[in-house]
């Protein structure tokens, strides 16, 4: 995750986050477009990992950016726009995923997941895309809190203190969630893991 909490200035010599945020508060949509471009990749990846699909992540990210636009004046520390935005991404992804779970109310059987992951016949994990999809499917089976903690820790590679700041959850609780996520993923991905 790049640019979290720092006064980011991109290589092209464009404006800092703080400058863009101030321009945006005055209605400058070019500043908005620049912020979208700057944070697009990191936020998109997190949203896809949390929702499990690019289609759903599209909805989440539209909502995230519009929420950021409407509330930009509440970004009290424009130098830390990245952290502020990331918190919106986390909240929106969490809300979306929980709503979807309630809506679908589908019971996902772990056995089905394990069986659906080809293990021995998987050709030495050569297909990176296929492997990613399999792991993503296992990730989708985790409770939202565990999935979020795992993605922040191991995919976005944040330290626990930053995770605590962004999620409002204590460090020890986050460590427990990550540990449980690993435990469960290990079971779900047994076939792939041994490949």
């Amino acid at each position, binding site marked *: 995750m790049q640019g979290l909490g720092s006064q980011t200035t991109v290589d092209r010599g464009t404006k800092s986050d703080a400058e863009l*945020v*101030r321009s945006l*508060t005055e*209605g400058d*949509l070019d500043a*908005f*477009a620049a912020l*979208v*471009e700057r944070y*697009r*990749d990191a936020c*998109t*990846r997190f949203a*896809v*990992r949390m929702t499990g699909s*690019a289609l759903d*992540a*599209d909805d989440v*990210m*539209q909502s995230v*950016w*519009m929420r950021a*636009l*409407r509330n930009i*004046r*509440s*970004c*009290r*520390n*424009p130098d*830390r726009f990245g*952290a*502020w935005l990331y*918190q919106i991404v986390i909240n929106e992804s969490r809300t979306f995923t929980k709503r979807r779970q309630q809506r679908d109310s589908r019971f996902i059987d772990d056995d089905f997941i394990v069986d659906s992951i080809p293990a021995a016949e998987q050709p030495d994990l050569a297909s*990176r895309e296929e*492997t*990613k999809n399999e*792991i*993503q499917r296992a*990730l989708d089976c985790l409770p939202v809190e565990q999935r979020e903690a*795992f*993605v922040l*820790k*191991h*995919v976005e*590679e944040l330290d626990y203190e930053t995770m605590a*700041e*962004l999620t*409002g959850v204590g460090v020890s609780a986050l460590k427990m969630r*990550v*540990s449980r996520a*690993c*435990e469960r*993923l*290990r079971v779900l*991905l047994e076939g*792939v*893991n041994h490949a």
Partner: protein
Amino acid sequence: MRDIENSSRDDEFAERIAQPLRAPEVLAPDFEARLMAQARAEVARQRTVLARGSWWTRRRMVMASPLAGLALAAGIAALAAVSTLTVARGAPQAPSVAVLHDTVQLVRFVFADSSARSVSLVGDFNGWARERTPLHATARAGVWSVSVPLTTGRHEYAFIVNGERWVADPLSPGNRDEFGTESSVLLLASNDAS
């Protein structure tokens, strides 16, 4: 010892499965076009709301935080407030804040602190920029004020005293942001509601 072993085992496993997940993801090619269209519509809507404000047409007073013994009257649409000073423990005269609203969404912020050498207003309406909205010393010693045009809706604000001390209104509803900073909340009703 077992915890350390488990943790190390978790990290190794997690690293292995996280690697493919770190691959970048892309959204639909038209994502940004759709987003910018929505953003333009939102900004246009906000400008419309701003332009619709019925300036200088009706009078109204909303007091978010009364200040005792302080009666203020000033200029256009100025109103007075009488309220009670809050005395904080250990402080001879704790800073107190009054917010007087005129009819036209011109909001007067009043701050009282006998020890203040300078006071500025920060809020979502000025990008939390401490240099943008300084309060001016009034004729009454230790009382500072500034009038700010505001749109209807919810606003968060605080005061910066002597260029460094952040003070939220102790008598107004408070709000704590994601980084633990406290500010005050002002709800400004629309003219249409009166």
